[in-house]
């Protein structure tokens, strides 16, 4: 019986349970883009340390829904990864 009570309390405390359609959630659901904003690293085909974060183990470009990079920066990133591939740096 004790277990059941605890379970009910937990459910009430979560912020998702009471949300209506037009209410904004307090929790940030999406992360901001790591490559835009102030002090963001420069995307460049010579900057291999940065590019290696955004490719999979087999060398494919990670989709932006995984890495949460903005569309504009994802285009830049894909371009510079392809340039680095041409020079056999990645």
């Amino acid at each position: 019986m004790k277990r059941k009570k605890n379970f009910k309390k937990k459910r009430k405390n979560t912020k998702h349970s009471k949300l209506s359609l037009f209410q904004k959630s307090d929790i940030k659901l999406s992360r901001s883009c790591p490559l835009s904003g102030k002090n963001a690293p420069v995307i460049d085909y010579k900057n291999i340390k940065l590019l290696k974060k955004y490719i999979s183990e087999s060398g494919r470009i990670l989709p932006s829904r995984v890495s949460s990079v903005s569309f504009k920066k994802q285009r830049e990133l894909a371009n510079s990864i392809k340039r680095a591939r041409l020079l056999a740096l990645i």
Partner: protein
Amino acid sequence: MNNYEHTLIMKQDLQENKVKTFINKYIDIINNNSGKVIKTENWGLKNFSHKIKNNKKGFYFHIKFEGIGKTIEELEKAENIDQMLIRYLTVRVKEHDLKNEYFEKKEI
């Protein structure tokens, strides 16, 4: 005038002390065709991530220069014939960043 970055990959057979004389040939082509070399970087001998035409290693050289379309036309015409070159890449940039150097510089 446009800003360009140019990277060359030379074959491993080329000896390290001959890289400079080899590169001077292309620097002259840039300077003679209304271009101007701003900065050169020697990245040295590096391993490829994958084989290119049965080569595993190559000498990398990086040139930053100003020029017009004709400069690149003449430069790439000469490079296409050259058998000691494996690959080259030309990239147009808005501004040269002369601060960052991503590879260790090796003097010839």
